[in-house]
């Protein structure tokens, strides 16, 4: 609908758009040398950098008397000594035709996350293959990540062609092998080029030793790749980053247009709420605009005062984005701590944060074979297809249609690390047909009938710390006081409700999630619920806390030093764990994360059972 309207013409017709590219290869494929060669031959290396290079080449170099061009790139001290690149580094150079930003990412297999990071912004990838080794499983892995991250153009640099006597046959065979592995992937172009990065053959200058090769040099190919389409032809989308209110008459919505075009007079909506409005002004510091397009950072004023805040998405009224709380997405996992279903994470999408958890992992992709296999968790550098649910409805586009509106990151809620990167495939409709049914009798009324306040007493601690012993006493005393309580104990629940679960991290999370939901139902029924579970992870305890009302969750840390618990060993479990007969035993080969701010801490190595019980009763009966 916007196609016919003129957008302000860009007056500039000279050289120079930006191409973002990614380079990937194995440790010894000569990737840094290739980039060094691109910079050196396109004269992006200054004289003083060359002097520093000469000095470094003598100190760290691996090429004898020649300049080791790789040393131009290896930025960090430790890397320079180890001779490998460990993180994403960015490089800049220009040719007569355009500006290039290179994300240089390591090829070593444990660094998938860095490659995904570099690939997330790249329009094209240069994939290096050592001509002597051909297409390796690493090549396949890098290519798959490029495909997954939405890169459209591949330059296959068949490097070290000098070491195979500039053989046409080898070049051709590698090109054929590569086309076979990319059969099922959807790249717009794949161009194999025979290269010697060390001697500069077919990088910037055409080689004299590969007369059989008539195709472009690396730089010629990079100049010819079409820049990322600015997403102009998609419907208008702009996440609001900041509300600009210099005075009561001006309420501007500042953001970057991520798709489409917008013009004064256009009908738009706030995506999640559906509130309609019309575009009144499009403002930049330079001038008011009649229209603006994808990629531009603008400030939009609407004709009516709709409720909009940071995080909302403005969208074309006639073509709105999908809004869902249940998503299917591919996730690249980037943390040592595995992704566990049911565990809540913080999700950033567009300019908003919301809570999200993985409902299930449909499968994990083996990136060497591209086979799919079932998985209960995703480890570091794993890639999996997942279903997620979010706390707030999310406005999005499928990733294949728009990278900016279809991507998200997952953040650990405790250490704030970025732990996952996700690409949305589509929204799942299921949730829209399930609406919570509110009953006619509320929990307050049920609790009042019992003359008590319903809540959960959550006892966490190591095996043998005394949780069950104290919990049973508390249950007994409450009953004797005429209060209505119920005891949920780890061992008992595992015999029934959770008999299908084991003791892996993923199963522990699910165990606690189910217990939390059951406890919540009992609180709804007006009961005081005493829960005695090791519950080793903070995030699951927090999950249960958040299921309940503000003062309905009382966390009791039953704290005894590990060696005390081991000495007590009431069920003989420590003995078995230490003998290797039980795996994943908390405190032995599985972590326990103590509460940071429990409502009550009971040092059971210093208190009697009666004293500990009294403290809990004091807390409950006082309130």
């Amino acid at each position, binding site marked *: 609908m916007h196609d016919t309207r003129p957008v302000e013409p860009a007056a500039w017709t000279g050289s120079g758009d930006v191409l973002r590219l990614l380079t990937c290869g194995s440790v010894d494929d000569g990737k840094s040398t290739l980039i060094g060669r691109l910079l050196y031959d396109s004269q992006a290396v*200054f004289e003083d950098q060359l002097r520093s290079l000469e000095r470094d080449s003598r100190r760290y170099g691996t090429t004898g008397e020649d300049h080791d061009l790789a040393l131009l790139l290896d930025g960090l001290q430790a890397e320079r000594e180890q001779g490998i690149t460990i993180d994403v580094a*960015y*490089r*800049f150079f220009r040719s007569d035709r355009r500006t290039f930003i290179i994300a240089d990412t390591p090829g070593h297999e444990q660094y998938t996350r860095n490659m995904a990071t570099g690939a997330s912004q790249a329009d094209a990838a240069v994939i290096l293959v050592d001509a002597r080794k051909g297409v390796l499983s690493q090549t396949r892995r890098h290519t798959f990540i490029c495909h997954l991250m939405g890169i459209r153009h591949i330059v296959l640099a068949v490097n070290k062609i000098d070491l195979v006597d500039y053989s046409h046959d080898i070049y051709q065979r590698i090109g054929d092998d590569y086309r076979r592995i990319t059969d099922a992937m959807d790249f717009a172009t794949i161009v194999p080029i025979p290269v010697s990065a060390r001697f500069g053959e077919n990088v910037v200058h055409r080689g004299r030793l590969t007369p059989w090769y008539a195709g472009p040099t690396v730089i010629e190919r990079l100049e010819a790749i079409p820049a990322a389409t600015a997403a102009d032809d998609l419907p208008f989308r702009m996440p609001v980053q900041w509300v600009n209110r210099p005075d009561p008459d001006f309420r501007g919505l500042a953001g*970057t247009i991520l798709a489409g075009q917008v013009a004064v007079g256009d009908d738009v909506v706030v995506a999640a709420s559906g509130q309609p409005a019309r575009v009144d002004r499009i403002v930049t*510091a330079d001038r008011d605009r009649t229209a603006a397009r994808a990629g531009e950072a603008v400030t939009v004023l609407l004709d009516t005062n709709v409720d909009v805040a940071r995080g909302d998405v403005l969208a074309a009224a006639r073509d709105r984005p999908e809004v869902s709380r249940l998503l299917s997405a591919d996730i690249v996992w980037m943390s040592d701590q595995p992704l566990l279903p049911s565990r809540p994470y913080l999700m950033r999408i567009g300019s908003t944060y919301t809570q999200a958890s993985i409902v299930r992992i449909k499968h994990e992709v083996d990136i060497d074979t591209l086979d799919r296999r079932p998985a209960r968790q995703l480890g570091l550098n794993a890639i999996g297809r997942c279903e997620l649910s979010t706390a707030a409805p999310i406005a999005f586009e499928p990733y294949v249609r728009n990278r900016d509106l279809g991507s998200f990151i997952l953040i650990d809620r405790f250490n704030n690390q970025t732990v996952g990167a996700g690409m949305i495939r589509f929204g799942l409709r299921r949730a829209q047909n399930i609406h919570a049914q509110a009953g006619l009798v509320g929990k307050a009324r049920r609790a009042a009938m019992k003359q008590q306040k319903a809540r959960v007493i959550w006892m966490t601690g190591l095996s043998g710390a005394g949780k069950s012993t104290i919990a049973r006493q508390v249950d007994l005393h409450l009953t004797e006081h005429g209060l209505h309580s119920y005891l949920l104990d780890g061992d008992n629940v595992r015999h029934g409700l959770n008999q299908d679960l084991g003791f892996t991290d993923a199963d522990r999370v699910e165990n606690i999630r189910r217990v939390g939901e059951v406890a919540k139902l009992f609180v709804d029924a007006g009961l005081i619920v005493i829960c005695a579970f090791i519950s080793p992870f903070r995030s699951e305890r927090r999950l249960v806390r958040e299921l309940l009302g503000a003062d309905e969750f009382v966390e009791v840390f039953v704290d005894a030093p590990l060696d005390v618990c081991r000495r007590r060993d009431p069920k003989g479990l420590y003995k078995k764990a230490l003998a290797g007969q039980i795996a994943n035993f908390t405190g032995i080969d599985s972590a326990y994360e103590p509460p940071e701010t429990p409502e009550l801490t009971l040092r059971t190595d210093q208190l009697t059972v009666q004293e500990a019980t009294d403290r809990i009763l004091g807390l409950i009966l006082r309130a």
Partner: protein
Amino acid sequence: MPSIDASIARYAARFRPDRTPRTRILPPHLQALEAEAIHIMRDVAGAFGNPVLLYSIGKDSTCLLHLALKAFWPSKPPFRLLHIDSLWEFREMARFRDGLRDALDLDLTVYVNREGADRDINPFISGTALHTQVMRTDALLQALDQGRYDAIFGGGRRDEEKSRAKERIFSFRDRKHVWDPRNQRPELWRLYNTRLAEGESMRVFPLSNWTELDIWQYISEEEIPVVPLYFAAPRPVVDRDGTLIMVDDDRMPLARPDEPETKTVRFRTLGCYPLTGAVESDARSADAIVAELIATRSSERAGRLIDHDDAASMEVKKREGYF
């Protein structure tokens, strides 16, 4: 050449609510870089409670300020500017800073490490390393602790130096302001992770993807005023181990009273005058500098004495909290 005061006054008028529309259109690569920087600055304004812009008076942080003026117009940038004054900067820098502050009515704090000043820390006597540590790095950390800032904009660019090339746009600092290059958060798409715990902070570099050439082209296209020291003029200089140092005041120890000679020079970076080398040049405008840069064969940090000690020295300084 119009006077610098007149340029600043004309510049400030562009940001008044009743501004005259500007119709000049940027080249596409600068459009993209400008939009990216504005996006980053707005993200910070939306996500952090107490940001600050570290304003060094140099060309990069003046571009940063320009981008902030554009990003939030017609509002003023919703954060303060902070200048760490080492007391050894070129006198023209403070004049320029105050002119800009007054014309644009900016909220600007100047911080000096008083303890260092009282101890008379001096690049000639105390040595370069100690001077930089006390009057720059220590001063910065003191000012950041006092201000309790959670996001700190800096003008760093990835093309400046090898260890910067690996730094994130949103670069996490722990409670001690320490950068851990091996434990950086992955940074994907435009989805910056802005989450912090109490006392931690984020250094934010909106110019990460700009090169020195981009900066000068942008200054030229956008007609941004910069400290006149960037442009060639006859200036009194002395030769110190092959580096031309300008005699900016009488604190400069001279071999003989008539030692300084007048040369037509300019500066590629600005900082403490005894530590900043001049280059001989005839470039008297941003356009001339662009032309010179395209022809030149020397990187801009070559004029910075503090970076020379060792190729890895910047990484060491950065880990300690230096920008």
